């Protein structure tokens, strides 16, 4: 689609966009004329500082202007909010050097999400991130006729809670998330599309607050991630903190710095760090009567940064072991993230992998470019039919068992989407419920892993101990998000329970925030729901019509009539402008097309692999584990 066409056609379709929601800076990109490019402001700047400043009477400022307000209003200005995504109030990360005021939780439920007191209100990281996303979406809307779905990048090493929080922020900002995409994979996509070079690559991604390493194979357009690892609390911010703590604060002669001094020390540290990328020595003048300027050399900086940078080596070596590779087998190493501009980092990467790292693309922009490319592919507009990303689950998922030990259900580096089942049984007569604790991480003990959800399965028919068979299914979708469902199999009673995670925000909380964000509250929300249902239904009608036309041969006698009747009912529901009627009609149409859809899928597979059969699916259900082996069982 040409740019001219975009400009002159008022009915041009909304365009998919890619967003890199970074710790320090965020960007939005879009594919234009077949090439991904970052969208810039009128000064040609693509980076939007990930800073949100709150003022009186609901006034919110985002980006460069907010960054300028930071020194004057350190407590009301939130920077590096990404470090707090999906984290609880009691998380050690929330207690590190920061100029923010943390709101003490008032209840246990409250303590699952960290909150900041800013100006006249209290905000969560999800709300702060939503402000940044709104600004990026607005920039895209100005440039494009309309914004369709969005691909948002997340660190590969983000856990389920951090991913969910990111998705919640997008929902709050009113964006339709096509996919959460891992940042290193996005970067590889940006590189691979330009170079078309097959091989095995490591992506070393050190951002402002997160570190990721991904080992992937590129085979004729398929990006197959073999292993990923990282540290979701390690980045350039730590460089600033280390410089501030070891050099700037002592030079200022401060031992117990308040928010203003902390902010100042971090600013000076960052300026020194940036200057030393180009120069061998930097002189910082300190805002203190009669004090000599602080002189810092690159060698000294190296000494301060080296121990932090070396922490990335642990994750790199583990990812290589997981991929069963030695560094010499790598075709290349791609550098991503602003912090990889540091000479200390580059020297370390060279040492670790034994190759000269690739950095042709701007390390700040490459992730957003990859996200835009993926958004285009997902919208089916890429025309690049052979590109596919096969990504993995970054951290093992498991269940807490007897003695607090973790039983791993899905190991790390499993290609997603993935599913695993586990069967449990009751330990007491007439037991009708029990509790499961889902955790994520690599440690042996549940207490050392991230707690994702505690939930109670209820409604088990009363039976003698050990008779009930509860099958719990863990599904991880292509966004890396976990869904858990359970059913009782012995009695044939399909007692499906969809489990909502116990962390973060539930749907009601997000809805409340949406309502308060909209000027006219409920009316606006209802109108928006209706509009969304309408768009979705029209898409469904279009694709169903196309399917009927192209695959008429796959229809069984009478099937066309049923499908067409369901389509007519949906069209009628659309006329009534009632969201729940439309929803019901959609469900009916889906039921009517279910079998046809299966046949179309099978035909597509047969075409892909030359008419062969996939073979019988063997689903091995693990042996039932005694519930006594599961801690925290509940008698009810």
């Amino acid at each position, binding site marked *: 689609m040409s740019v001219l066409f975009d400009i002159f056609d008022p009915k041009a379709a909304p365009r998919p966009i890619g967003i890199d929601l970074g710790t320090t800076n965020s960007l939005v990109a879009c594919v234009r004329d077949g090439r991904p490019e970052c969208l810039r402001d009128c000064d040609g700047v693509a980076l939007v500082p990930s800073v949100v400043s709150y003022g009186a009477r609901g006034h919110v400022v985002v980006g460069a202007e907010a960054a300028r307000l930071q020194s004057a209003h350190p407590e009301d200005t939130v920077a590096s909010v990404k470090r707090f995504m999906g984290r609880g109030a009691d998380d050690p990360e929330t207690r590190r050097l920061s100029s923010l005021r943390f709101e003490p939780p008032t209840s246990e439920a409250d303590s699952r999400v960290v909150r900041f007191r800013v100006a006249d209100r209290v905000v969560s990281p999800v709300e702060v991130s939503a402000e940044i996303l709104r600004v990026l979406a607005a920039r895209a809307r100005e440039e494009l006729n309309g914004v369709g779905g969005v691909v948002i990048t997340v660190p590969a090493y983000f856990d389920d809670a951090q991913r969910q929080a990111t998705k919640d922020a997008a929902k709050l900002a009113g964006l339709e998330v096509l996919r959460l995409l891992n940042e290193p994979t996005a970067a590889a996509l940006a590189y691979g599309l330009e170079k078309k070079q097959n091989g095995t690559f490591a992506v070393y991604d050190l951002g402002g607050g997160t570190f990721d390493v991904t080992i992937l194979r590129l085979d004729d357009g398929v990006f197959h991630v073999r292993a990923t690892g990282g540290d979701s609390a390690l980045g350039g911010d730590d460089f600033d903190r280390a410089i501030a703590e070891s050099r700037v604060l002592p030079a200022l002669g401060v031992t117990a710095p308040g928010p203003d001094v902390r902010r100042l020390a971090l600013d000076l540290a960052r300026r020194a760090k940036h200057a030393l990328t180009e120069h061998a020595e930097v002189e910082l003048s300190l805002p203190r009567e009669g004090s000599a300027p602080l002189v810092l050399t690159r060698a000294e900086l190296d000494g301060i940064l080296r121990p932090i940078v070396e922490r990335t080596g642990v994750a790199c070596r583990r990812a290589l072991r997981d991929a069963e590779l030695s560094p010499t087998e790598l075709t290349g190493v791609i550098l991503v993230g602003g912090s990889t501009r540091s000479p200390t980092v580059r020297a370390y990467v060279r040492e670790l992998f034994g190759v000269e790292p690739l950095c042709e693309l701007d390390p700040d922009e490459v992730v957003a470019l990859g996200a835009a490319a993926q958004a285009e592919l997902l919208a089916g507009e890429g025309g690049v039919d052979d590109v596919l990303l096969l990504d993995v689950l970054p951290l093992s998922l498991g269940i807490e068992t007897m003695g607090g030990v973790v039983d791993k259900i899905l190991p790390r580096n499993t290609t997603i989407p993935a599913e695993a089942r586990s069967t449990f049984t009751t330990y007491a007569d007439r037991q009708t419920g029990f509790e499961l604790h889902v955790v994520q991480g690599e440690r042996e003990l549940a207490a050392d892993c991230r707690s994702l959800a505690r939930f109670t399965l209820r409604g088990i028919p009363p039976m003698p101990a050990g008779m009930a068979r509860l099958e719990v299914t863990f599904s991880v979708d292509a966004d890396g998000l976990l869904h858990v469902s359970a059913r009782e199999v012995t009695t044939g009673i399909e007692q499906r329970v969809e489990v909502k995670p116990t962390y973060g925000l539930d749907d009601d909380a997000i809805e409340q925030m949406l309502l308060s964000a909209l000027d006219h509250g409920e009316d606006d929300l209802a109108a928006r729901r209706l509009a969304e249902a309408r768009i979705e239904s029209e898409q469904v009608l279009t694709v169903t019509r196309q399917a009927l036309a192209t695959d008429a041969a796959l229809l069984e006698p009478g099937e066309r009539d049923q499908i067409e009747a369901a389509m007519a009912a949906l069209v009628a529901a659309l006329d009534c402008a009632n969201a729940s009627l439309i929803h019901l009609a959609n469900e009916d149409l889906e039921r009517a097309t279910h079998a046809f859809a299966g046949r179309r899928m099978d035909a597509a597979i047969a075409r892909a692999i030359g008419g062969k059969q996939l073979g019988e699916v*063997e689903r091995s259900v693990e042996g039932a584990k005694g519930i006594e082996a599961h801690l925290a069982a509940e008698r009810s």
Partner: protein
Amino acid sequence: MTLGLTPTYGLDLSALDARYHELSKVVHPDRQAGRSPAERRRALSLAVDVNAAYRALRDPVRRAEAMLARGGRASDRAAPSPAFLMDVMELREGLAAARAASDLGRVRGMADEVRARRDRVIAGLAAAFGAGRDDDAVPLVAELRYLARFLDEVRAIEEEADA
């Protein structure tokens, strides 16, 4: 699920990768633009199955178990020879000693030895299945499991030493 490949133990792993990629291009959730919700759901469940099958087929132990199951033999009762068990016991004692002494060099040396041994067992399995001698494969599968577990332990030791 064999992903449409001929069931054989001596699987060509690059052919498996190629087939896996072809299938993923059809069933992966990212490739469902322009499809109805029913088709997307069907594709998702197929993508989950294809991923699981790929993972199982790449694993030499699970591939052997699947081959035995095809021939109607159970692999879980199989026991390796007493001589093999003695060997493994000695290896594990050696590994425990190397771990206690934090001798990573010795750990890696033992790992190389066991890897070579594992590769010989895999070759033996391919020969046994290839000749239709499934009964001969049964004790080899048990051996392979022990060797794989040993290598898992090596990984854990390496990780522990690194952290």
